[in-house]
Structure formats: structure tokens, C-alpha cells
């Protein structure tokens, strides 16, 4: 029986074209309207070295990368061993491997693949014969995969044509020959893998994008016309894209000398009246701490995208972790209100970023969007129709307010009209010093208290208007999972499987961390018997943070582990099963 959901993983060295192949298949799937999630992993080398690409394609909606692989392609066993534990084949996986690999098969130990179908394929030989170069072995592989597993054949062929159509004469022909050779070889294998054949009906094409790309699109959509940033993995794509898009949309961009200048520059840009943004990762956010306090004190709307990676310090630059929550929520001296949003997938990166600009403008607060590498750099299909979001602009003073202009006038919401340079009668001299309503420096304890109250009142407004969260699963459940960010995907997938096994489980995923949607959470907490926190950080940053403002019910369970590997569906299932069986609170991470 064919399948409607297929996960493939491909492992090779830099020159093997693994990443290109994955990208072509993802594009082909999106063209046919399939749901696709693609994740890449690399060794630490700047160029070359081992790389892997995991691609899940499904006729049904999906929300996480496939952590149990149906089909594994290995060009080189030595490279595969470097991804051990990250690329895990299913028990009955189909494994295609280079026939001429010197590693004897008995030395290749894949403990999960107990009942796998092993197929040796002379990738290099096939490519060399058909095209004259082994460089085309990824295209040969595409042919094999298209034939064996029903990967959108017509679209994959079009992908090959597109990829090589503009190259010099003969290149396209050679690659099409390679593709055909792969398909032909697949017909000679003589092993029945039809259970892995993808079956689906073609539908309208979907967008394929990463979380970082979705954030960049959202910035443009929100009317951001100034960006300043410093390159840092895994967020640099936002800087790259906007360096093209902003000059083409009436905006400007500066690559600054460090992250504190980046936030400083966008504070300047926003003060000057232009919606402004920066993007960074943990080490950059650390440098931005002083400027966060300034934006909070001077009440200047800015958007900071933090694509989290393993920390602290340089940490794990290319790998995901959810460990900047404390820094985002608390990172500053003094009492410095800010907003923290946490998108849950690629599409939500778009919405969170537009919300960030809206809330920043509405409240004149710094807004941090806490994305992470697992969504920032994974590629997913998105329905274009879903990328619609209202944009809110700044409240500038009315003529009446300008008559006696007070930049920091006390108002019920704490938000004062913000005049923009160029406005006659709206002049003020802002500062990071405590100040009175007219922005004049003031160091009396009475004024300090009054202005702190004003600045924090804005959080109440946000908590009321933006209780952003997702409630997954039934209204009432035995087990209630609390997770955030990219963990939502694997949790959602695991819940489907758990529910199918009769487990009563739901989940609460806050999309705004500060201010926390307390009311919604308390209602949720009352709807489940046991709360279970799942986080990809060592100490349980969300759990500990929430304990500062809610009393969590007795018996709440907390599962946390460091990042470096994304939360997997099987891991979530395992944790929930252990809750149901009453075992371990914290499990050791094993290699």
C-alpha cells in the first residue's frame, strides 16, 4: 500500500550535492502542492565537509521534520557516522548506499534499522556512465528516488531543467541523461518498496521558505524601511535578504560594526520616524542589553529578531536551543519593560514579526521576536493565502497635543504621542536618564516611580490585547503539554500519534512570552490533570519564568534538555508515556 507521508534523508560530503538535491525535491513537492519540511545539517567546516538533508513530504498537513526516516541515501558511510543520532532510520527503512563505499556493511551499525531493506547503488558509476562526470550523482539519485518513491516525477524533471537550463550547451542534456539513468536503474533493483511510494493528488503550488525568510518578508510587509545588523549564524539570512529588498523598496540598510551599534542605529532610525529592525542570535542579544534598556527608557519602538542557537558564549553556532528566554525577558539593568514574542513555525515567523512591529508602534517598546535555528533555517511550505496580517502605524501627536507638547505625557495606557523630527512644535530632547513628562532629566524618586508605572502600564495593554497562544488538542485532557517556539511542531505531531493510541493529551503554546497570556493559561491549566513542560534548554527557562507569576499545580512535570538537536516526535512521545507510567522527571541525554 502506498503512503501519503514520506521522510527521506540524504548524507554525503560537500561535493555530493546532497543539499542541492534536497532543495530540488522540496521545490518539486511544493510545485505539486505537497506539504514539505526540509532541514539541513552541516559539519563545522566553512566549505566542504559532511552534510545531511532531511526532507519530509506529505499529502496531509505536517508540523515537524520527520525524525524517523523512511528512506536513507548514503553516499559515504564515514559522513553518515558523523550524523549518528541525528539521522535515525525507521526499523523497516529503505537504505540506498554507495556500492563502492570501502566501509564493509557489517561495520555499519544502525541500531534502529532492525528490519531495513538495504540496496547497494553504484551512484558514481551510474553518473559517470550517463554524464561523463561523477558530479551528477545527485541527479542520478533524483531519478532513482523519483521512480522508486513517487517523488513528484514531472516536477523533479522540471527542477532539473530549471537548474541546468541556463548552463552552457550540453550540461542540461547530460543531467537529463543522468536523471533518466537513475530512473532506469530503479527499474532493475527488483526489491519491492511500493509501501514507501508517495501517493497524492496534485494541488496548487505552495511557497517554500525558511523562518528567517518569513521574518524578512514580514519586515517589508510591516513597513520596515531601516535595518541595521551584524552578521551572525543562524540569523544572517535576514540581513542578506534585506540588503537587496530595502534599497528596492525605498528603505536603507547598514551593516554595523557590532550588535550594540545595530540596536543603537535602529533606535536612532525609529526615533527619526522610520520603522526599524535588527536581527541577531544569542551573543548579539547579549551585546544589545544596554540598548534594550535605552529603548525601554526612551520609549522607542524597535523590533529585534533573535534566532536562538546553543549557548552561552559562542556555544553551538549552527544548532538550535531555546535558551535565550531569560535574556530576552529579563536582560537589562533596572526595571526595563519589553515585549517578547515566540513564533512556533515558519508561517508564524511572518505573523510574529508583523505583530512585533504593530506592538512596538502601539506601545513604543522594544519587541524581541524569539525565533530559533530550528525554524529560522528549516524550509517549509506555506500557503500564500495565510500570509495576511494587518499593519498598525505609529500614533503621532495631534495639532491639539502639539500646542502643549509633552513627549512623555501620562495617559491611561502609558503610551504618549510620539513626535517625529521635522515636526514643528514637537521638539523634545529624549534621554536614557529618568525624565519628566517633557523629557527633562529628573532624578526625584517620586518621578522615577511615576514614570516606571507609566512604562509598565503598557504591558497591561499588551496582555489584554495580545494574549497570543495556541491550544492544541481536546478541551479537556489528562496530560497538558506546555512548550514554546519550534517545539510546537514535534509536540503537535506526537499528539496525533498519542491520541491515535487513546492517550488524552492537549498542549498550550504561548506565542507571546512577555507579557504572558496568564488568563488563557490559567483556564488551560484547569482543563488538564497533569501539566508537562517540554523545553530545549538545560534549566527549564519557561518553567522557571512562569513560576515568577503563577502557582503551577502540584505534580507538574518538567522535561528539559540542552539543545544541539531539535526536539523529536519520538522524544515527545517517550516523555509523555513516561509521565503516564509515572517514571523519571529528568532523563539523561544519551549519545
Amino acid at each position, binding site marked *: 500500500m502506498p503512503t501519503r507521508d514520506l521522510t527521506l534523508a540524504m548524507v554525503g560530503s560537500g561535493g555530493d550535492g546532497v543539499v542541492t538535491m534536497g532543495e530540488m525535491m522540496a521545490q518539486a513537492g511544493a510545485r505539486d502542492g505537497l506539504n514539505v519540511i526540509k532541514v539541513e545539517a552541516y559539519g563545522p567546516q566553512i566549505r566542504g565537509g559532511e552534510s545531511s538533508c532531511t526532507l519530509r513530504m506529505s499529502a496531509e498537513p505536517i508540523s515537524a521534520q520527520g525524525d524517523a526516516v523512511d528512506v536513507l541515501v548514503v553516499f559515504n558511510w564515514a559522513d553518515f557516522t558523523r550524523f549518528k543520532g541525528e539521522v535515525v532510520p525507521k526499523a523497516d527503512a529503505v537504505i540506498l548506499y554507495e556500492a563502492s563505499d570501502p566501509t564493509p556493511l557489517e561495520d555499519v551499525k544502525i541500531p534502529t534499522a532492525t528490519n531495513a531493506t538495504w540496496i547497494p547503488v553504484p551512484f558514481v558509476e551510474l553518473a559517470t556512465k550517463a554524464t561523463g562526470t561523477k558530479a551528477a550523482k545527485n541527479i542520478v539519485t533524483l531519478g532513482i528516488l523519483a521512480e522508486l518513491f513517487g517523488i513528484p516525477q514531472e516536477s523533479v524533471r522540471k527542477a532539473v531543467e530549471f537548474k541546468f537550463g541556463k548552463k552552457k550547451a550540453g550540461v542540461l542534456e547530460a543531467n537529463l541523461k543522468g536523471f533518466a539513468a537513475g530512473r532506469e536503474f530503479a527499474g532493475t533493483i527488483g526489491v519491492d518498496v511500493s509501501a514507501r511510494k508517495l501517493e497524492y493528488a496534485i494541488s496548487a503550488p505552495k511557497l517554500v521558505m525558511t523562518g528567517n525568510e518569513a521574518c524578512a518578508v514580514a519586515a517589508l510587509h510591516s513597513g520596515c*524601511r*531601516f535595518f541595521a545588523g551584524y552578521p551572525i549564524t543562524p540569523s544572517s539570512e535576514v540581513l542578506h535578504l534585506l540588503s537587496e529588498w530595502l534599497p528596492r523598496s525605498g528603505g*536603507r540598510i547598514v551593516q554595523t560594526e557590532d550588535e550594540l551599534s545595530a540596536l543603537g542605529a535602529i533606535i536612532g532610525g525609529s526615533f527619526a520616524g522610520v520603522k526599524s529592525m535588527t536581527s541577531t542570535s544569542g551573543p548579539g542579544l547579549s551585546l544589545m542589553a544596554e540598548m534594550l534598556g535605552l529603548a525601554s527608557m526612551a520609549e522607542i519602538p524597535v523590533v529585534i529578531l533573535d534566532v536562538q542557537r546553543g549557548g552561552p558564549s559562542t556555544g553551538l553556532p549552527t544548532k538550535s536551543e531555546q535558551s535565550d528566554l531569560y535574556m530576552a525577558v529579563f536582560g537589562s539593568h533596572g526595571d526595563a519593560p519589553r515585549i517578547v514574542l515566540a513564533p512556533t513555525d515558519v508561517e508564524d515567523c511572518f505573523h510574529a514579526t508583523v505583530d512585533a512591529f504593530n506592538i512596538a508602534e502601539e506601545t513604543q517598546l522594544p519587541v524581541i521576536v524569539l525565533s530559533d535555528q530550528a525554524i529560522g533555517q528549516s524550509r517549509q511550505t506555506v500557503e500564500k493565502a495565510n500570509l495576511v496580517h494587518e499593519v498598525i502605524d505609529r500614533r503621532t501627536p495631534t495639532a491639539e497635543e502639539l500646542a502643549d507638547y509633552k513627549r512623555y505625557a501620562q495617559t491611561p495606557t502609558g503610551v504618549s504621542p510620539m513626535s517625529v523630527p521635522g515636526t514643528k512644535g514637537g521638539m523634545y530632547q529624549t534621554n536614557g536618564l529618568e525624565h519628566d513628562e517633557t523629557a527633562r532629566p529628573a532624578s526625584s524618586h517620586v518621578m522615577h516611580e511615576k514614570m516606571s508605572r507609566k512604562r509598565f502600564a503598557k504591558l497591561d495593554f499588551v496582555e489584554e490585547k495580545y494574549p497570543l497562544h495556541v491550544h492544541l488538542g481536546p478541551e479537556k485532557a489528562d496530560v497538558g503539554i506546555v512548550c514554546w517556539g519550534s517545539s510546537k511542531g514535534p509536540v503537535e505531531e506526537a499528539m496525533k500519534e498519542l491520541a491515535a493510541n487513546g492517550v488524552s493529551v492537549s498542549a498550550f503554546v504561548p506565542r507571546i512570552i512577555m507579557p504572558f497570556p496568564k488568563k488563557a493559561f490559567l483556564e488551560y491549566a484547569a482543563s488538564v490533570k497533569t501539566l508537562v513542560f517540554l523545553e530545549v534548554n538545560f534549566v527549564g527557562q519557561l518553567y522557571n519564568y512562569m513560576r515568577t507569576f503563577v502557582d503551577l499545580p502540584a505534580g507538574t512535570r518538567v522535561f528539559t534538555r540542552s539543545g544541539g538537536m531539535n526536539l523529536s516526535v519520538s522524544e515527545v512521545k517517550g516523555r509523555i508515556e513516561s509521565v503516564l507510567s509515572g517514571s523519571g522527571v529528568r532523563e539523561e541525554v544519551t549519545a
Partner: protein
Amino acid sequence: MSSVVTTPDPPRFQPGDYKSDLKPVWCAGCGDFGVVSAMYRAMAELQLEPWNTVVVSGIGCSSRLPGYVEAYGFNSVHGRALPIATGIKVARPELNVVAVGGDGDGLAIGGNHFLHASRRNLDVFYVLMDNEIYGLTKGQAAPTTPSGDKTKSTFFGNPEPSVDPCELAISFGATWVARGFSGDLKGLVDLMVAGMSHRGFAFLNVMSPCVTWRGDDQFKVMKAKLRGLPEGYDRHSRAAAFAYTRETETLTTGVLYEAHEPSLLDRLEAQRTKAMQGYEELTTEKVLKVFFPPF
């Protein structure tokens, strides 16, 4: 600075129009009074519209200056006047942006930004009030404090050599570099008018004595060292300028260096014009098309 908004005669703005009603916190006799007075006059001479002008600073005694100017102002955080000014100017090129601050603010904690604002030839006029000491924190050694001088933080004398801010600015790529003295109001006004009119990064180092922590004879000491640039001085030569840096026995004021090179905004504008050739302005709709499979 490059966006001087001028008006026809008769002058609409008098120097006093740029004076805010906030009373300076500076000590009596502080050199910074001379600097802010010169700034009022220079702004009046150029008829800068106050509402189209932003004065930005970091932290320190001299960084209080934006509060004393009737214009938009931003007294930010220590060392960061230039990043903030960069954002204001790049986001809104039509504004007049002046950055001000002290030697500790600009050369120690903010030194890296000084390098990069100079290198970029950022369209901002930057006035550094150099009193050779940390004044606001009450008398510690600054990067400009002469070697050997005893300060609150150098009990046995300053063990480090000092820097010349003008030498740095020229090396870093600033395209207009001058030195002034806060006791010479007229000279200072002329330098400020020229600096504000320069297209690109204009840097003015003003020797601005701290009578509290450097001694109340500093005005006299500096005045005695004052001299002008010689007749026929070639201000377009970096090599010539370096002969008037790191002075110890003399204090040369005037425009040490000037070059006419495209400013940051010139370059950004040229890029934008080129980027738009054959392109319509991007919209969300157009950008999203990029993400559909291209075949």
C-alpha cells in the same frame, strides 16, 4: 552633515533661538559653555531649522549638551552617540544631525564607533569636547590624559600614553578634521559652520578645559600653547596634517584635513538609484513570488 536647510535674509533665527530653557549642570568656568555658545551661533549662521535638526550624545558632562539646544535631541547611553546618529541620519537623510560628546565617551567606550563612522564617511558633524579627563565620574584618567598625570584613578600617575583624536580621525577616514579651543569663540563658530557644511564625516576636536579636575589654570595653559596653521598649509594632505598631531608644547587650531569623497549617503543613494533601474518598488506581493517554485 550635508543637509543644511538655509533660509533667505533676513535671518529668521538668532543664536538665542537655539538656546533651550534648561539650565546647564556644568561647573562654573567649564569649557563646554564656550562650545554650546559657539553651536548656537553656528546654527544661526546656517539658519538650521530647529525642528529639522537633531543633536545626539552619549554620556558624560559634555553629553548633556543636547538638552541645552532647542532642537530635537537625544542624550543616549555611554559611548553610543555615533550609532544612534548613524540610524537617524541614514533613516532620514534630510535631517541635520550633529553628534557631541566627551573624550572618554568617544575614544574609550565609543572608540570603535568613531572608527567606523569615520570609515563610512557618515554624513554627521561630530564635536568632541576634549578635557583630557573623566569629569562626570569625578576625575579619572581618559585616553587623552597626558602620560604621567596624576588623576583619581592613577594614584602613581597615568601609566599609559595618550591619543590624539584628530590623528585617529584622519587615519580612520574622516573627510573633514579640525581642532578648536573653547576659549576662542569666534574661531570655534567658524570651524562649526565649516564642519556643519561639510558633506561627509566632519570631526571637530575642541580643547575644552575641565576647571574642576584638570585645574583652573587650564584655560591659561592651553591659550599659551595656541597657534594657527601656517600660510599655504595644504589641508588636503594627510601627511601635512600629521605634522600637527600629537603636539605637546603647541596647540594648533584650524582645519587640519579636508577631502571631498562620496559620503555614506551619497553611496547609498547611488546604490538605490541603480537598484531601482528597471525595477518597480518592491511590495509584499512581489517578494512572495520569489518563494514559489521557479519552474
